[in-house]
C-alpha cells in the first residue's frame, strides 16, 4: 500500500482538451466521437475551427458515452440520444438542487 499525494485537474469549462485527448481520455474511437458531435451530444468549443477543442466537462460526457456504449451495445444514433437525455436529466437535477437550496428549510 503506498499513498502518494497527487495534484488534480478540474474537469470544467476552464480545462480544454483536444479532439485526440478526448478520444484517449474517453476510450471512444475518433469516428465515434465525431458522430457524437454530429448528433449534438458533444459540442466543440468552436465547431468552425479545423482543430476541435472541448471543455473539460465533455470528458465526463464522453466517458459516460463510452460506458453506455460498452454496456448496452448502442449504435452511435442511440448513444447520442441516450447521452443527450442523460445530460438533460443532469441539468434538470442541478436546477432542482439549486431551487431546493433556495427554499427555506421549514417549507421544503
Amino acid at each position: 500500500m503506498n499513498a502518494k499525494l497527487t495534484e488534480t485537474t478540474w474537469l470544467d469549462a476552464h480545462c480544454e482538451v483536444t479532439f485526440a485527448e478526448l478520444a484517449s481520455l474517453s476510450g471512444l474511437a475518433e469516428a465515434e466521437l465525431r458522430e457524437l458531435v454530429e448528433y449534438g451530444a458533444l459540442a466543440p468549443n468552436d465547431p468552425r475551427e479545423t482543430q476541435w477543442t472541448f471543455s473539460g466537462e465533455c470528458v465526463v460526457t464522453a466517458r459516460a458515452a463510452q460506458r453506455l456504449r460498452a454496456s448496452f451495445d448502442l449504435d452511435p444514433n442511440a448513444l447520442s440520444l441516450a447521452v443527450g437525455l442523460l445530460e438533460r436529466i443532469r441539468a434538470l437535477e442541478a436546477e432542482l438542487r439549486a431551487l431546493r437550496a433556495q427554499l427555506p428549510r421549514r417549507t421544503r
Partner: protein
Amino acid sequence: MKYKDYYAILGVERNADTEAIKKAYRKLAHKYHPDVSKDPQGEAKFKDVAEAYATLKDTEKRAAYDQLGKHAPGEDFRPPPDWGRQFGDSHAFEGIDLSDLFEHFTGRGGRRGAMPIPGQDYEVTAHISLEDAYRGATVDLELAVPEFDGSGFARRVPRSFKARIPKGATDGQRLRLKGQGGKGLNGGPDGDLYLNIALHPHPLFRPSGHDLYLDLPLAPWEAVLGATVQVPTLGGTVELKVPAGTQAGQKLRLANRGLPRPHQGAGDLYAIAQIVVPGAASDKERALYQQLADGASFNPRGHFEEEGKHERQTH
C-alpha cells in the same frame, strides 16, 4: 478463490442460451447501470451483473466457467486439477478473484502478449464536507485495484490514495488525477483516477453551485424596524444589516461569502429572511401586540379583496 454463481446473478438457468443471457443482462443493466440508475447500491450490483455477463456471453469463457463446477456462492473452491492446463493459465489460484480470472482469461493455450496495455481508469465518489470544499482538503481513498504479476495475471490488491481536492469543489464536480489509476502493462500508460465530488449535507448552509443559502430567522420587530445581526459564514461570523421592512423570503446577499470557485472568485451567500413568531408571549408582550393590532392600518390580505372585485367585474 470465492465462488460466484454467474447464472444466479443474471437470474437465468444454467442451460440458458446466449439470447436469454443477453436479455437478462440488459434488463438488469437498465436497472443498475451507474449512469442511469438512482439505486445507491446500483454501481456494486451492476459490477456483479457486468462481470457475470462478460463471462457468460463468451462461449469459451462460459465453458471454462462451467468446468469450475457448481458451488455455493461465496464458497472457497479450487478449480479442478487440469483446469489451468486446459484453459491456458497455469498460475496459482490463491488470493485471486473470480472476476480477475475471467477478465484476463486468454483462452485455450493463449497467453497475454507483449502489447502495451494501458492501465485501467477508476472513478470514485469523494464525499467531503462543505468546510473541506471551502478550504480544500486531502482525502483518503481506498480502492481494490488489479495488479499484474510477471505473467500478466491480475490480483486485486487494496491501494490507498491520498487525493488533494483544491479549493473550489462543489456538488457534482469532477476531478482528474492523471496517472493515479491502474498500472499500465508492457509499457502502456497508467490509468487515471476520476473523482466525483459529493458534498455532505450541512446543518446551516445549502449549496447551489458555488452559492450558499442560509435561513435567517428574524423577529417580527427586526423585520419591521431593521437590525444588524450576526450571521455565520464558512469563513467566520459576519455582521449583516437587515433593512427595515424586510419581507419573509427576501434574499439578503453577502457577496463572495459562498464557496470559492476553482480558478478565481467565489460564490455568494444568500441569507433568506424568515419571520419567526415567538412561541409563548408573556402578558406584557400580548398587550403590546394588542396595542399594535389596534393601532395598525396594515391589511396583509388587501389583495384578496382587490382580486375579488376584479372577478366580479369580469363575470
